């Protein structure tokens, strides 16, 4: 396949960026989107140009490092991560626009790489449980009802990629934060911090400059792991419960 790529190029965080146009040829439909960009970068390097910077790590859809807004969609046209998107989703002669995640809480570092450490700080604010370290406890020591385990697991699938923020017209991190809150708040292991977790994580989310939820649902549509929009409803419920309780104390 022969493709025209229009890629966001930005030298560093302070520089102005712009879209640059590149042609790539001999792209196999079996390549992943990132392999296609590798091909472009090889050519750029051979031509003595600066390769396009983009984030990636596992390349198997589990780490959450890859990003990219492709033709206006976070992670591109399929419901998966950019590393798991294949070129068969495109046609010969296509023009593909590639942009970084856009949100003031995710500043561009270079080209397509953004700084997502705001997510780490939300996790630090409450995305953990207090448990003694050491050998793993016996699995049946703490019984968890099956529906709760399924609910926790569904939310634990969040890989922290930030596509929800990129897709949201308000740059909100509600879906990410709600995935973490729901995952831990439903489990007995997460119970001791049930109230402080949701209050502190939401406060940190606001502090980082993410927007608020207007329930457009763009986040859930973009999420490669299928975290549902009602996850946000669940976090709101937890937040209101925690606020009522902290008022009593």
């Amino acid at each position, binding site marked *: 396949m022969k493709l025209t790529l229009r890629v966001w190029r930005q030298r560093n965080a302070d520089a102005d960026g712009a879209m640059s146009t590149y042609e790539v040829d001999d792209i196999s439909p079996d390549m992943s989107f990132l392999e296609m960009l590798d091909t472009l970068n090889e050519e750029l390097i051979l031509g003595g140009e600066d390769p396009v910077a983009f984030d990636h790590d596992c390349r198997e859809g589990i780490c959450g490092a890859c990003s990219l807004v492709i033709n206006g969609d976070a992670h591109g046209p399929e419901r998966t991560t950019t590393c798991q998107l294949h070129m068969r989703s495109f046609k010969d002669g296509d023009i593909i626009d590639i942009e970084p995640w856009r949100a003031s809480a995710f500043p561009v570092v270079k080209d397509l790489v953004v700084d997502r450490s705001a997510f780490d700080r939300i996790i630090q604010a409450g995305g953990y449980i207090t448990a003694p370290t050491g050998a793993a406890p016996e699995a049946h020591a703490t019984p968890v009802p099956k529906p709760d385990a399924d609910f926790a697991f569904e939310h634990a699938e969040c890989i922290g990629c930030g596509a929800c923020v990129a897709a949201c*017209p*308000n740059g909100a991190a509600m879906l990410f934060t709600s995935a973490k809150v729901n995952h831990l708040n439903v489990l007995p292991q997460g119970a001791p911090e049930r109230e402080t977790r949701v209050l502190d994580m939401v406060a940190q989310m606001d502090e980082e400059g993410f*927007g608020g939820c207007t329930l*457009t649902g*763009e986040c859930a549509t973009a999420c490669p792991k299928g975290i549902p929009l009602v996850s946000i409803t669940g976090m709101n419920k937890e937040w209101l419960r925690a*606020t009522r309780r*902290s008022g009593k104390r």
Partner: protein
Amino acid sequence: MTRTMWDSSVGKKTVMAVSGLIMLAYLVVHMLGNLKIFFGSDEFNEYAHALRTLGEPFLHYEWALWITRVVLVAAVVAHAVSAYQLSRRDIKARPTKYVHKKPRASYATRTMRWGGIILGLFIVWHILDLTTGTVHPGGFEAGHPYQNVIDTFSTWYGNVIYIVAVLALGLHIRHGFWSAAQTLGVGSRTRDRAFKTIANVLALVLTVGFVSVPVAVMTGVVS
């Protein structure tokens, strides 16, 4: 607790949902009251008078009306201020637009802010028109709402302003009622269809109910 509410984006959204639902409840009653215009001027004017003596002898003359007014003004102010502050935050959080644009979200969802502004302006206009009579066309007479309504809807702009606002209201409720259920944490996977249906029914019933009055005056059904 009050501080947590007002300082948090989630809390402010709760304020918006509660104040929105208060206004919505009022509007359902208001719309039903308006329909009395189809039963003639006596019944309509009597109804307007009854609103003033509501709660007597327990409440003094017009007290019930004033309590309603105070609650509504508080709701409108709380709703508008939180809408403004949250919208400012949302716009700041996404300063750079994507070069590749895609059509997004439903019409009702995308028009919440503009629709809200239209509703805010309309509320002011509506009170100046039919409560205080300040901008009323023709001779405004307190205590004769039937004639006042007919005067308003005998002007083209009276009709246009009203109908635009009512359509904006329908769209606002369509997304707003369902949103409020999510904000207040009562929505769920199993109840989602029900909340969406109730939102659509409320939006439709309010729109048709409110619009029926100017349409009736225009077509001469009410004169």
